[in-house]
């Protein structure tokens, strides 16, 4: 019974995705591929932020670490992408775990700015450590993925593989969501003190959520590297981190479906608006603002037609217990 939802999710993603892949023209397939890659990253961000409430504006740095890890191992040391991928993902996970310890003592906008600083630092290092990363010229000629001896060339074939990865990540995420670990993350965000009072080690949960998000990001980064076959520091700037967060919020935070919908919408929306000419980004910003104002629960909020519960005053937060009664 517990496997019902994850399996259904897996099936829907694969079926919908494959149908679209057969119907859409090449240019839209390219966008769909980018959406799928983003969706993998944003599902990861959902763990960190949607469940555990960690405002991470450095997510793109983890995507970049996965991408650069794979790119360096394949182009410089001749590894195959399949062996480089787990190493790059593991290295990113370890890094996330290590910086998680000092970083996750911060909360709210302090954490937001700390992760922003981290992303900017990543960008600066990637742009200037030319010996390792090629600097702003990036790394080119990243090898394609081969499955059973056959290269995944072209948008359609890569899309099928990308969908498989997305479906798998989404299924795993939804299994976690309904497990004690998912509930612990949600509890920590809802009320960290109450969570501690329920025997939950809030710090450990936050670090776990952070590492999980880094793993998903790194997987997305590897996909990106193998798909684009060329990466540069600006692919992982803090602007991308903000985009991932916007995708999650617009789609609906704490929701895997929301993560996917938001990724697709915010990848396609600038293209749909392109007919407006140079003004399209102006409108894009206004539209996103509009969604935030009118759909505070994101797009998935539209689907939830539950009657509004009576408005409860939120319990006044007691972040630091004070001298009182």
């Amino acid at each position, binding site marked *: 019974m517990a496997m019902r939802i994850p399996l259904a999710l897996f099936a829907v993603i694969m079926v919908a995705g494959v149908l679209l892949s057969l119907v859409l023209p090449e240019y839209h397939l390219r966008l769909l591929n980018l959406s799928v890659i983003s969706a993998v990253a944003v599902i990861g961000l959902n763990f960190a*932020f949607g469940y555990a409430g960690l*405002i991470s504006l450095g997510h793109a740095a983890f995507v970049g670490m996965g991408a650069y890890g794979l790119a360096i191992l394949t182009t410089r040391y001749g590894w195959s992408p399949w062996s480089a991928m787990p190493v790059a993902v593991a290295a990113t996970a370890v890094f996330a775990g290590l910086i998680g310890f*000092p*970083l996750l003592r*911060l*909360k*709210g*906008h*302090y954490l*937001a*700015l*700390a992760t*922003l*600083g*981290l992303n*900017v*630092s990543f960008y*600066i*290092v990637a*742009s*200037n450590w030319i010996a390792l990363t090629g600097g702003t010229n990036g790394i080119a000629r990243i090898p394609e993925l081969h499955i059973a001896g056959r290269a995944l060339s072209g948008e359609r074939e890569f899309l099928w593989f990308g969908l498989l990865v997305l479906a798998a990540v989404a299924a795993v995420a939804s299994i976690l969501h309904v497990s004690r670990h998912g509930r612990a993350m949600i509890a920590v965000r809802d009320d960290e003190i109450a969570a501690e009072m329920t025997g939950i080690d809030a710090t450990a949960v936050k670090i776990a959520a952070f590492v999980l998000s880094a793993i998903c990001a790194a997987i997305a980064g590897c996909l990106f590297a193998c798909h684009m076959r060329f990466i540069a520091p600006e692919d992982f700037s803090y*602007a991308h981190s*903000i985009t991932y*967060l*916007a995708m999650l*919020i617009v789609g609906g*935070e704490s929701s895997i479906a929301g993560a996917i919908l938001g990724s697709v919408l915010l990848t396609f929306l600038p293209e749909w608006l392109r007919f407006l000419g*140079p*003004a399209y*980004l*102006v*409108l*894009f*910003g*206004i539209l*996103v*603002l509009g969604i*935030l*104002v009118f759909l*505070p629960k994101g797009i998935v909020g539209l689907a939830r037609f539950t009657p509004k519960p009576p408005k409860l005053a939120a319990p006044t*937060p007691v*972040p630091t217990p004070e001298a009182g009664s």
Partner: protein
Amino acid sequence: MADFIQLLVNGLAIGSVYALAAIGFVIVYSATGVVNFAAGQFVMFGTFAGVAMLVNARLPWPFAYGAALAVMALFGALFFLVVYLPLRRSSVVTIIIGTVAISITMQNAALLTFGSWPFRLPSPVEGKTVALGAAIISTHALAVVGVTATMVAGLWLLFNRTTVGIGMRAVAQDIQAARLMGLKVNRLLALSWVLAALLAGVAGLMLGPMWFADVSMGDPIALKAFAATIIGGFGSLPGAIVGGLLVGLSEVLGASYISSAYKDLISFGIMIVFLLVRPQGVFGEKIQDRG
């Protein structure tokens, strides 16, 4: 030694600009709780308001500056109405994303209006220099420091000696109590945004001649302003000043003495160290998470 003095003055000048941007950011944060990620674009707008009035409309200096600042004040009020009011009950993250979204709109609106080529915004003391021993100091840089100091003094007077300013501080401390005291809270909140926009405008007008006026200049400035507020102490005005000066100095001195490529890393490095070791910054209160 002469080099060092020149660098010091330049660092203080850039730092003053960052300080003004940071002060605007802190005013808005203290009064409304909003972490305004469009703070950098406000400064960019200030610079380009100057470009529009000085370069395009060719107004004489006092009128140009006055008109530019008037435009900024109007923009601040508009921002309050269109961005702050609809989002004021939303979560921290939603507001962050909202201000980022508008930041994209602002940057691209400027791009549409002015194009992507950088402009040259002249200064009233263009090209003039002052000799301090063997050091040649740009008069503009000195003027920037002077103007900033004056504005900081003006702000002190505003917040400590005027009813309006004290009202703004009241709103910043406890909005409910302020309401109960009969203060016109919405008006004071709008005023906070207008004030922040004006400060950013001044910053932009002074920064323009030191750099180039470029529609993409907003983001780097925002990052420096954030670093400044973290280092100085998040809700603190003196902190914003100290933080801004520190960031400006570390950038200019770091570029010369350590590495030009990694100069930005130095200010972020300092910011991260502060976040890890002393998140309340130099002056700030020990609150880690505002409401």
